[in-house]
Structure formats: structure tokens, C-alpha cells
């Protein structure tokens, strides 16, 4: 990511680029976890992430608990990788296949190790085995993922709604689920987005600082631009 910068502005950034070259201190641990469960391990920004096939999901987490000492369940959740967002920005690159990515982060209680296990299931057949038997705390997390994404967890004792009222239709955290308040009133109001005359210079400066591939017209059409006040606060000295 640092390499996409037009030029390294300070020694700090050059240092960061070098760090990327050197193996991450957690890389070895990620490898060992990946080989223990038969998955693929990466370190993404100090987070060990191990991807496994969906049919090994329960088996993987059982190994993590029993053999790797990751006894504490942090959370189970999902990401909806979708090409049709009703709200928010679309993905930069179109996906070949729309999937749900399931995440389960588990941790130990001694050295501070934590691993995020990940697996992908297709949109059309969003079914996966439940982790309730492995981590009792997965019960509520899976109920939440069920109502928010429509993912079915086989073997779960009670997939009733957790947060949503009983008659609620739809799965709110799906990218295709519109946010009603945004439909009624775009927010922040479009008036806030108009650039102040004095901001013209700053804008071009900001773009040269940021990643160079951002498209200016898309920005203008984007209703979620920071308000001028906010942006002013964020500006570096």
C-alpha cells in the first residue's frame, strides 16, 4: 500500500515500506496455525487470519480450542461480499462470485494470541454448521448473523430473532438491504457537500497526498462527503 504513494514524503514512510519487506513477527505463528488446521494463513495488519474450506469449519475451531489453546470466543460474524450495495460505496473491483465470508475470532488467555478464522459460503446456499457445540458463546453471535445476513447455522438450538422484532422481514446487514432513513432523506444534506471557494487548493493537495487513483467526479456525487467543519478538523497541520 505504501508503494502506491507517489513519493515517500518522509523517512517514516520509507521505514514503513521496509517493514513490509521484513517478515511480520506474527508470520511464523500464522503459518503454524494454518498448518495445524489445514488452511491458508496471512497476517493482515497485525491480525492473524486463517482461511479454511467451509466443510472444515467446525473441525477447525475444535482444533483451535483443543490443540492451539484458543479457548476464548471473541466473536462470530459475517461479511456480505456483494456487487449490489443499496447503501454505501460499491467495491472498487467487481467480484466474480458473491459470497458470505464467515469470521470467527478466538483467543487464548495467556499470551495474547488471537486468530481470526474465515471461510466463504455462496449467497445462494448460505448454510454452515453451527459452532455452538465448540464455543457456547457462539449461540447469540450466530443468532445475530442469522437475522442480519440470513445465514442458516445447522445444529443451532434456536435461531429465533435476537435483536429484531418477531415479524421483521429481510436481513438488515445485507448490502442489498436499503437503509430507510437514507431513502427518505439523504444525509448529510447535499448543501453540506458544496466546497467552499477557499477549499479548492486544499482539495487538490489532499488528492496528491492520498492514493492517486481516486476519481474526483465520483467524490462530488458522493453524498457521504465529510462536512466542511469535519474536514477542517481532520486536516493535518
Amino acid at each position, binding site marked *: 500500500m505504501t508503494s502506491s504513494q507517489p513519493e515517500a514524503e518522509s523517512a517514516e514512510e520509507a521505514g514503513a515500506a521496509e517493514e513490509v519487506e521484513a517478515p511480520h513477527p506474527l508470520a511464523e505463528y500464522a503459518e503454524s496455525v494454518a498448518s495445524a488446521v489445514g488452511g491458508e494463513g496471512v497476517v493482515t495488519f497485525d491480525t492473524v487470519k486463517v482461511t479454511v474450506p467451509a466443510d472444515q469449519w467446525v473441525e477447525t475451531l475444535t482444533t483451535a480450542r483443543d490443540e492451539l489453546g484458543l479457548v476464548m470466543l*471473541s466473536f462470530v460474524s459475517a461479511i456480505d461480499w456483494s456487487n449490489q450495495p443499496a447503501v454505501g460505496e460499491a467495491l472498487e473491483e467487481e467480484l466474480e462470485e458473491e459470497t458470505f465470508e464467515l469470521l470467527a475470532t478466538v483467543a487464548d*488467555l495467556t499470551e495474547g494470541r488471537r486468530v481470526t478464522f474465515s471461510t466463504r459460503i455462496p449467497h445462494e446456499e448460505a448454510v454452515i454448521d453451527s459452532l455452538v457445540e465448540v464455543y457456547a458463546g457462539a449461540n447469540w453471535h450466530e443468532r445475530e448473523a442469522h437475522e442480519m445476513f440470513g445465514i442458516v447455522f445447522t445444529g443451532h438450538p434456536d435461531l429465533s430473532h435476537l435483536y429484531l422484532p418477531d415479524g421483521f422481514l429481510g436481513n438488515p446487514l445485507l448490502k442489498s438491504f436499503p437503509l430507510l432513513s437514507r431513502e427518505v432523506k439523504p444525509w448529510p444534506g447535499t448543501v453540506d457537500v458544496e466546497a467552499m471557494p477557499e477549499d479548492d487548493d486544499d482539495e487538490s493537495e489532499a488528492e496528491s497526498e492520498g492514493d492517486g487513483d481516486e476519481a474526483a467526479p465520483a467524490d462530488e456525487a458522493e453524498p457521504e462527503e465529510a462536512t466542511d467543519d469535519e474536514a477542517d478538523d481532520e486536516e493535518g497541520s
Partner: protein
Amino acid sequence: MTLDQESVRHLSEVSVSVELETPEMTLNIGPQHPSTHGVLRLMARVDGERTYDVRPVIGYMHRGYEKLAEVRTYPQITTIVNRIDWVSGYANEVPFMTAAEKLMEIEVPERALWIRTILTEMARISSHLVFMASYPLELGAATPLFFALRERERVLDLLESVTGGRFHPNFNRIGGVKPAYGSGSSTRKMIQDLPASFFAETKLAMENVLEACEQLEDLVAGNEIILARTRGVGVLPPEVAAAYGVTGPNLRASGVAFDLRKVEDYLPYDQFDFDVVTGENGDCWDRWYVRLQEIRQSARIVSQAVDSIPSGPLQAKVPKVIKVPRGETYVRAENPKGEMGYYLVSDGGQGPYRLKIRSASFSNISILPWALEGVLIPDIIAIMGSLDFVLGDVDR
């Protein structure tokens, strides 16, 4: 019938269960109940004085923050995250900022990190003081409330003097803390820092907090009724607590010496001298006592930080329009309630593609069906209160 120790403590219960047939009934507690810290409903099957098959019903405070985060920019999300656990709003902001800074590869100035540490620990003190006030009150002792809330008000005043808000500071910025008026602009060069008297007053406030801890310990630890209602009640074995994801003081009370401040590097806690407090039995009493000791440890951290705070800028150089490069990370922090974490997925835009909020109270009370199985009805309040949850933190 043999009388075990627990039954002896509740003589009334002994006479009832021996003499009478007790038909089963369903008991609804809440959603509006003074001991639920918000709107939590419990549905319990009751047989005599014992409860079985307790089902917590949550969601009354659900605000859909994970969805809202997808339609907001990073600076705007700060206002959302400090409303998750509103008793310690400041502590919720820090891990989110750290996650965004990690993806942007920004190095936060030391002085800003120190200020974050000071304010986070003050948020912890004020959150634990609310527990010190409310928990004895739920068990029938009103006096500790006045001692605890008096000191909390002083701490909140100091937080307010820095951030402008008692509950929702919204003080963190990506790359540091809020630059005081003018310091971030190219046209206004005046630089303000923390209020001039802040450090002196904070030191004084910490002394007062420590004194209040003594008073609270005197008041509560010597109270036979409170001891009888909390000792041996609601025992959580460490392995069960871990499987449910119970973290923070609740887990440490069960004897697990695990504190994210010691193992994660989101704030410079390695620069300060403090102990991880643990309990022995994992009962309600230990959870009270661990929190009391944590106030003392937090006061220790704040005093050290105030003495050793480095000088320098409050804010790193960041682009005017915050765009976070593509990537994902999980950052967790030791919130007053337990592990507060954000799984942040960015696609290079101005807002996250997905923000999973892992809040401590959610997992902490997911153990309630297990913890309340077969307990006496009055103990429901004792056990629930001792878990110290906030419904905003449960429902997000």
C-alpha cells in the same frame, strides 16, 4: 432431605420447599426494571423460589450501528462508537481509531497516545464508580451510591474540561486527539493544548478517588448483608466464562490473570506500572472486589501518565479527506466492561465496507442462561448486577 450450606443460608426457602407443592410458573422480569441498567427482559420458568430456563430478551436498544457505519465516513463514525457503552464513551473510541490508523499506517504522536491513555483510564474509573454506586443499591444499600457518584462527578468534570462532553466526548481523531482550536488549520496557527490546570486537578482527583475507594471498602466490605448475598453466589468457572466470551473484570474475578492492556499495543501501557487484579472464587463478591481494585490501579496509571507525559504535537499529519486503504484488521482493547473490538474491513473508500463491533457486555450477558439456571429469585439481581453490563453495549 440433607441441608447443604446454600440452603441453610436461605432458611425461608427451606421451609417453603419442604412444606409446599410449588406449581411451575413463568416469570417476566423487565423490560423496565431498575436493576437492568436499560431495557432487558428476562423470561424465567419459576419453580418455588428457583428459576430455570432463563431466556434474556434483548434488542430493545438496538440501533443498527454496524449498518450505520457502512454509510458514514470514518470521522463521522466516532460519534456512533462512543454511544455504544455510554458509561465509558471515551474508551470505545480508541480501538476504532487504532484500527483505522493501522490500515492507514499512521503513527500517532506520543503525547496524543498519553492523553488517550489518561482519558481511557479516567473513563474506566468513572464506569467502575457507577458499578460501585449501583450494585450495593440493587442489594439494598443506598449509602455507597453517594460516595461513588461524588467522585465520579469530579472525574467526569475533568473529562468534560478536556473533551467538552461528559458522556460522549467524541475527542479522538484519526491520527491523534482533537487538535485544539486552530491547531489543525493552515490559516489559524494558534495551538492550544489541554486546559492549563488539568494535570494538577487530575492528580488531586486521583487522590480523592483513592480515598473514596477506602470509604467504599469500609462501607461495603464490612456489611454482613452484602457479604451474605454475594459470597458464593453466581460462581463462574473460568473455562465456562471463556467459552461464552466473558471478558474483563468478570473473567479476572474467576481467577484468570488476563488483561488486554498487558498484551495488546493499542496504547502505551507498557510504560506504566500496574497490576492485573484477579479474584479467587469467581462469585459476585469477587467481581465487586476486582472492580474496586481496578479503580485503584487505574488511578495509579493516570498519576504516572500525568507525571511522565511527553510534549509534542497532538495530531499526526493526515490527508484532509480521510480515505482508508484497502485491508482488514481486528483491534481489541480492554474496555471497562471487557474486550471491546472492531473488525474493520476497508475497500479504500471514505467509509468502511464492514465494521463488526464486538462489544463486551453482549458476550458478558450471553452467559446469563447458564449462570441463572437453578438460582434463587433474589440472586438473579445479585448475579445480573455483578456482571456490570450496559444495554447500549449489549444491543449496539
